[in-house]
């Protein structure tokens, strides 16, 4: 009897060991996939960074609830660089070297992205930038999920010229995004038969626009291209409305990104136009479902902006890439992109990563703001490819120049 129970204990011990042995390699396979996230949730850009963090968190929760990526749970390590580019660099190094993240996601301004790229390139990590931007980055380490000028401006500018006229005044923030997008505006306007009759670059943080408004009135443009960035510069809209400037406006960043129409009292944003892959007013079954899930988790969100949406989509994009590559290795993932079949079904529809530029195709819509600040869809452009980089000779499947190109800075012809 006694011997029997001892044998049994022994057996139990053995089987426990055997189970441990069986579990051990499995547990190693269960190690979490680490995603390093850099989003500003304090500082001047907090109102944009908060929805981005929320988008990532929502996707994380959904993906983990459905078994993670290849059976591995994912872990988000979020640091807040507070809108400071030096902190972006410091935190990126920390995430890569100490936390050993598998992928880096984030950055708001183009300045922060350009601060991150050299670090990502030196460590040879994968980096996903989730904002719309001025385009042109041809870098094998970077995947861009946001929209670019050929999707936003090649659509918006000809329409604005046809609808409102040829004479345009540009008001732009004075840093790389504003300068490069203003260059795009000049370039595309010329092609559309229009011209920039005046442009003004505003230092970041400036909040008083009396003189700018008068410079505009003196120039008498048909419409304004608004490339002002940051909460301080957004005060332009209130001050222009108070001075009865009453000009049509176009922009690749207003409404769907900074939700100015929710922050300012109507009719300050009346007659603002933008072309976007996402804005909260999109009304399709997939978009409605997405908005419902978002609002269930974050009921107090002022506006689900395109940055937040892109941050959400980026997580699913990464999931698809890792699962197709069966690895988190950067080169394996780039091979998947090179096939041209790196696509996901997102709330805007099916979107794919372009192999040449590693930018994303998007379903673009032109939206306009009415006097009561409601948003209407004026034109549906369908899916537009990020074609510009490929056309000028960037082909990441063949060479990786890690360069940012612009209409005035094209790759040298071989």
């Amino acid at each position, binding site marked *: 009897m006694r011997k029997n129970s001892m044998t049994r204990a022994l057996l139990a011990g053995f089987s426990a060991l055997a189970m441990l042995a069986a579990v051990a390699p499995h547990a190693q396979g269960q190690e979490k996939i680490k995603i390093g996230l850099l989003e500003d*949730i*304090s*500082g*001047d850009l*907090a*109102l944009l960074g*908060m929805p981005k963090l929320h988008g990532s968190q929502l996707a994380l929760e959904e993906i983990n609830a459905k078994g993670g990526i290849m059976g591995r749970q994912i872990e988000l390590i979020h640091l807040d660089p507070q809108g400071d580019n030096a902190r972006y660099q410091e935190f990126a190094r920390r995430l890569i070297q100490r936390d050993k993240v598998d992928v880096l996601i984030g950055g708001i301004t183009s300045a922060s992205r350009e601060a991150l790229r050299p670090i990502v390139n030196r460590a040879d990590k994968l980096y996903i930038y989730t904002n719309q931007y001025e385009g042109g980055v041809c870098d094998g380490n970077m995947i861009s999920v946001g929209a670019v000028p050929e999707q936003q401006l090649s659509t918006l500018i000809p329409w604005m010229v046809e609808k409102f006229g040829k004479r345009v005044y540009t008001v732009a923030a*004075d840093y790389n995004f504003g300068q490069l997008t203003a260059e795009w505006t000049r370039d595309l306007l010329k092609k559309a038969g229009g011209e920039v009759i005046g442009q*003004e*670059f*505003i*230092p970041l*943080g*400036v*909040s*008083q626009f*009396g*003189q*700018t408004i*008068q*410079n505009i*009135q*003196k120039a*008498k443009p048909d419409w304004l291209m608004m490339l002002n960035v940051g*909460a*301080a510069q*957004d*005060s332009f809209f*209130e*001050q222009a*409305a*108070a*001075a*009865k*400037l009453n000009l049509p406006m176009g922009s690749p960043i207003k409404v769907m990104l900074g939700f100015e129409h*929710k*922050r*300012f*009292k*109507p009719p*300050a944003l009346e007659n603002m136009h933008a072309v976007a892959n996402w804005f909260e007013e999109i009304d399709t079954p997939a978009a409605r479902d997405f908005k419902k899930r978002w609002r269930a988790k974050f009921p*107090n969100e*002022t506006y689900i902006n395109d940055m937040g949406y892109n941050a959400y989509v980026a997580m699913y994009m990464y999931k698809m890439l890792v699962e197709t590559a069966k690895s988190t290795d950067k080169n394996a993932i780039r091979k998947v992109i090179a096939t041209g079949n790196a696509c996901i079904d997102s709330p805007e529809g099916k979107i794919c990563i372009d192999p040449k530029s590693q930018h994303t195709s998007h379903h673009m819509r032109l939206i306009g703001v009415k006097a009561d600040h409601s948003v209407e869809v004026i034109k549906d452009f369908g899916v537009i490819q990020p074609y510009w980089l490929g056309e000028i000779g960037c082909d990441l499947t063949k060479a990786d120049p890690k360069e940012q190109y612009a209409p005035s800075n094209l790759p040298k012809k071989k």
Partner: protein
Amino acid sequence: MFAELFSIVFQFADVFAFLILAAAGLAIIFGMMGIINMAHGEFIMCGIYVTVIGVQNGLPLPVAQACGALTAGLIGVILERTIIYRLYDRPLDSILATWGISLIVTQGMLVTMGSSWPGIGTPTGSFAVGVYTFSTYRLVLFAAAVVVMIGIYILFMRTSFGTLARATMQNPQMARALGVRTPRVYAASFGVGAALAGLCGALYAPTMTLIPTMGITFIVEAFVTVVVGGSNVLLGTVPAAVVLGVIRTSLNAWHGQIVGQIGMLIAVILVIRVLPEGVSGWLARRAR
């Protein structure tokens, strides 16, 4: 031609008003008590948020603005009585302490009030001169700046509080020996400075985006004006605002806001080099 001229004058008045209103509170606190108040922007932000929330709860705009200024002033008095009074002989520590307060307040606002707040809109009313149209409210801002300066003059030169305050400023020991309750004078002066910062915020509240860090947008102009003006608010701030306003307006009109800002900052560097005590220090020395 008249339209051009009017436009230039109007823009100058606009810049002047911004400089005066942004700097008045800072100048009083610096000039009276030697405290460099790094939380100046947060008093402005306090005025803004109280005004906006007041209007959204049905108060008429002027009443809400008065509430904004008073709330900021009250908080200023409380802060002086709890923290600032310990730091009168430690100017560097006072910079650190007020900066810390500023960080705590902005982050606290971000956590409790969210990253943005819906605006209230500028009171309607505009007028046209030639091709230009102007918002009438900007004239209100200019008038307010003038009234604030006259108010400061009357308060410090024509009231008994002003006499006591100036006595305390010049020689605190002697003032105390003659029976002046200097702690009260300090608290009241700090309160007046904070209230003026709050008033600045209250006045600009309808014209701007509302975020917790918005006080920062006033800070550069406020410090620049105080540096150029020097420690005497009555002698320094107005000439400083006139000089900086002229430089900024003409450069803005000539070549846009970047040049305007660069020109203003270069002017400050030159003034620090030539007149280290600011305009008021120079005027006071000439008077002697």
